[in-house]
C-alpha cells in the first residue's frame, strides 16, 4: 500500500480535533482532498457526509433522457421509456425482434429493432430472455407502458396506493401546518418529513417498544403545530393483502420438486422487491431502470450553495463548484526508499546499486525512515505553512484488556519545526517546464538511500532529512523522519495539523508579489488550519527481513 494522506472534516464531532488515528472513527472523519468542499462564508471544509443535498434534475442512466421532475413521481422514479434491467444479472436488456437468426455465424441475435414481431427483451450478458417468462411485445416501442399492467397489478404497488390514500388526509393537514412554520424549506422536504412522521407514528403504535423516529432538524427549530397533531388519532390501517398467508405452502411444494438450483431466484435477484416475491426464477420480471439524479450541495451551516451542476444531464460542468482543492494545499506523501526501489525495478538495465538491504518497500521495526511531503499551493498568493504532529493521547482501557493495541504509538515522527513557503500558483507554471522537472530529479534517483535523502543537494554537506528539500513552481517538498520502536506493530499513522497563512485581499498578478497591494487596504494576513491523517504504511516485524527478495 502506498502511503496516503486524508483531510479532516470536523462535522462528526463537536470538537475541532480529530479522533486518534488508531480508532475506527478516524476513517470516517478523514477524506480524500478531492472529495471535499469549501464554504467561503463559514471559512470551513465540508464533506459529502455533512452537506445538504438537493436533487436538481433526473435522468435515465441508459437512454440519458432527462425526466421532468413533474413526471418522476408518477413514473415511480424509473425510466418510462424502453430501458429495462435484466432481472437475473442487472445488465441492460435489448429489444430484439423474432427475425430468423442471421447466418453470418457471428451472432444469432440481431441487435437492430427492425424486424418481425413479436419482440422480446434479451440480455446479452446472461442470455435471459423475456419470452421464456411469457413476456413479448407487438411493437418495439413504448415497452414500459406495455408492461405497466404487470406493475400496477402487483400486490406491493396496490398496497402502496392504498397506504397513500390512507395517509393523504393526514398529510394534507400536516403539510399545511408545517409549511407555515418552515417557509424556507423546499416543499418536498416538508412532505418527506411528514411522511416519515406519519410512518413513525404508525410504527410506534403498532409495534410496542419501537421509538418515535426523530427527524434531526438541522435548523434546530421546534416543529410548532406538529406537536398538537396527535398522530395516534389516525384510523387504523388494514392491509389489503395478508402478509405471509399466501405463498408459504406453495414455496414448500416448489422447493420439494427442484431439480436445478437455477430454478430458485437468488436473494440478490429478489432483494429489491419491496414485497415478498416468488422464489421461482421463472417469475422474475424485467425491471424498469431506476432514474439517476444530478444534485446540488449546500453548506449545512449557512446553506450557501457549494455545488450546482449545469442543467444538462450529461454535462460535467458546474455553475458553482467550491471544492477544497482550490483553497487548501494539496499534499502527497512518499517514502523515498520505496520510490528508489520502484525506479530500479522499472529501469531496464540499471544495475542495483549498493543499497542496504533494508531499503525495500516495507518499513521494519527498530529502523528510521525518511518520508517526503509535497505541498502544492492552489492559491494565486504564496502561503506560509507550518506542520505539526498532533500529540496522541492514547487511552489505555481501565481493565487492560487490549494492552497490545492500547499502548502509546511506538514510533516518533519529526517534521520541520519552522514554517516554510509554498509559492503561488500560476497558470504558466503548470505544464510548460515539466520536462526540466524530471531532468533535475533524474540524477537523484537510484543513488538515494533512505537515510541520506537530500544530503547531496544541501551544499553545506549537512545531512538534511527533516526540512525543506525542494522548491519548484508552486510545489514545496519537505522531509520528515519516523523512528520506529523495536517492538512496534501496526501502521505508522499519525494526525498532522497543517496551518497556513495567506493574504486575504483580492488576488493580484503573481509577478509583483513584493509590490505592496492597493494602498487603501494593506495585505491582510489570515491563517487557516486543518488536520490531516498521514498513513505511511504497515510496520513489519524485524524477523521478516531475511525473507525479502530484492530481485522480484
Amino acid at each position: 500500500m502506498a502511503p496516503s494522506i486524508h483531510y479532516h472534516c470536523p462535522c462528526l464531532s463537536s470538537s475541532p480535533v480529530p479522533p486518534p488515528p488508531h480508532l475506527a472513527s478516524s476513517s470516517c472523519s478523514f477524506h480524500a482532498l478531492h472529495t471535499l468542499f469549501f464554504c467561503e462564508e463559514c471559512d470551513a471544509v465540508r464533506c459529502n457526509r455533512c452537506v445538504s443535498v438537493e436533487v436538481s434534475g433526473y435522468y435515465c442512466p441508459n437512454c440519458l433522457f432527462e425526466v421532468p421532475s413533474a413526471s418522476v413521481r408518477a413514473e415511480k422514479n424509473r425510466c418510462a421509456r424502453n430501458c429495462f434491467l435484466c432481472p437475473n444479472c442487472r445488465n441492460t436488456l435489448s429489444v430484439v425482434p423474432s427475425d430468423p437468426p442471421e447466418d453470418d455465424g457471428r451472432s444469432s441475435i440481431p441487435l437492430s429493432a427492425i424486424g418481425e414481431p413479436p419482440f422480446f427483451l434479451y440480455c446479452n450478458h446472461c442470455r435471459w430472455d423475456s419470452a421464456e417468462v411469457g413476456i413479448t411485445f407487438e411493437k418495439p416501442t413504448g415497452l414500459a407502458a406495455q408492461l405497466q399492467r404487470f406493475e400496477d397489478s402487483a400486490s406491493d404497488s396496490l398496497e402502496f396506493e392504498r397506504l397513500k390514500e390512507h395517509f393523504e388526509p393526514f398529510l394534507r393537514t400536516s403539510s399545511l401546518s408545517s409549511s407555515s412554520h418552515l417557509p424556507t424549506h423546499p416543499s418536498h422536504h416538508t412532505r418527506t418529513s411528514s411522511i416519515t412522521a406519519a410512518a413513525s407514528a404508525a410504527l410506534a403504535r403498532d409495534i410496542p417498544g419501537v421509538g418515535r423516529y426523530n427527524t434531526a432538524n438541522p435548523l434546530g427549530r421546534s416543529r410548532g403545530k406538529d406537536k398538537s397533531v396527535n398522530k395516534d388519532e389516525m384510523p387504523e390501517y388494514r392491509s389489503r393483502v395478508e402478509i405471509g398467508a399466501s405463498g408459504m405452502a406453495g414455496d414448500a411444494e416448489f422447493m420439494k420438486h427442484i431439480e436445478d438450483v437455477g430454478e430458485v431466484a437468488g436473494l440478490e435477484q429478489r432483494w429489491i422487491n419491496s414485497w415478498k416475491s416468488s422464489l421461482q426464477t421463472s417469475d422474475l420480471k424485467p425491471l424498469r431502470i431506476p432514474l439517476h439524479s444530478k444534485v446540488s450541495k449546500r453548506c449545512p451551516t449557512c446553506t450557501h450553495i457549494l455545488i450546482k451542476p449545469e442543467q444538462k444531464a450529461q454535462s460535467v460542468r458546474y455553475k458553482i463548484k467550491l471544492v477544497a482543492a482550490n483553497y487548501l494545499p494539496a499534499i502527497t506523501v512518499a517514502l523515498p526508499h520505496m520510490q528508489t526501489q520502484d525506479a530500479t525495478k522499472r529501469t531496464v538495465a540499471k544495475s542495483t546499486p549498493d543499497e542496504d538491504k533494508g531499503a525495500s518497500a516495507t518499513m521494519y521495526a527498530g529502523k528510521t525512515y525518511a518520508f517526503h511531503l509535497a505541498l502544492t499551493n492552489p492559491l494565486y498568493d504564496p502561503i506560509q505553512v507550518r506542520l505539526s504532529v498532533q500529540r496522541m493521547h492514547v487511552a489505555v482501557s481501565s481493565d487492560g484488556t487490549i494492552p497490545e493495541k492500547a499502548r502509546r504509538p511506538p514510533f516518533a515522527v519529526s517534521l520541520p519545526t519552522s514554517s516554510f513557503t509554498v509559492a503561488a500558483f500560476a497558470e504558466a507554471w503548470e505544464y510548460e517546464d515539466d520536462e526540466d522537472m524530471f531532468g533535475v530529479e533524474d540524477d537523484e534517483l537510484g543513488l538515494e538511500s533512505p537515510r541520506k535523502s537530500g544530503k547531496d543537494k544541501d551544499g553545506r554537506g549537512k545531512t538534511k532529512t527533516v526540512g525543506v528539500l525542494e522548491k519548484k513552481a508552486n510545489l514545496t517538498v519537505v522531509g520528515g523522519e519516523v523512528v520506529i520502536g523495536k517492538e512496534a506493530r501496526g501502521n505508522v499513522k499519525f494526525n498532522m495539523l497543517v496551518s497556513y497563512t495567506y493574504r486575504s485581499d483580492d488576488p493580484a498578478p503573481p509577478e509583483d508579489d513584493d509590490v505592496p497591494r492597493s494602498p487603501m487596504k494593506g495585505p491582510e494576513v489570515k491563517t487557516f488550519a486543518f488536520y490531516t491523517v498521514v498513513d505511511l504504511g504497515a510496520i513489519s516485524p524485524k524477523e521478516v527481513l531475511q525473507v525479502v527478495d530484492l530481485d522480484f
Partner: protein
Amino acid sequence: MDPPIFYSKAEFIETDTGNKVSRRATIAGPQNIILGGKTIISSGAIIRGDLRRTGPGHAVVISLGRYCLVGEGCVMRPPYKTYRGNFNYYPMKIGDHVHIGANSVVEAATIGNHVEIGKNCVIGKFTIIKDCAKIADNTIVPPNTVIPALALFSGSPGRFTQDLPESTQEMVEAATKTYYTRFQPLDR
C-alpha cells in the same frame, strides 16, 4: 514528486505532435487511425484500423484524442453489426485524457473525455461511455451498454457502483498530463 516511468528510446517512435507509439504495438491500417497528440500506445497493444466500413475511399476507423494511453496488451477493435442484412464495421471515437489499462479489450462506439478504464476490462461492442466515467479493473461491460457521465462501473456485468466526485475532470486531466510527462526515454 512522482518518479519518471522509463521506456527504451529504441522501442518508441515519437511523432511531431508528441504521440509515442511502441514498435512492439500492432497498428493495423495506420492510415485509418488518428492520434490527437501526446498519446501513448504501449507495447503489445493491437489497434485494428484495418477493420473499416466496406466501400470506396478513406475512412477514419479509430480516433483517439490528446493525452490518451492505450495500455500494454490492449486490443482496440471497431464494433460491428449486421444491419438490414449488411455486415459492417462502425468507427470508434475516443476523446481526450482517456487512459485504458493493460490487457483490456475495447469495442466501444464512443468514449468521451476524461475517462479511465482499468486493467483487464472488456468493453463490449457499441458501448457508449460519457465524460468523466470510470470503469474499474476487471469489469465486463456487455455490448450496447451506456455509461453515464461521472459514473463508476464495476463487476460482471459492469453495473453502476457510485457517482464520482465533482472534481473528477481536474483529477483525471492532471493524472493523464503527469503520466505523459513522467513517460521518459532511457537512452541505453
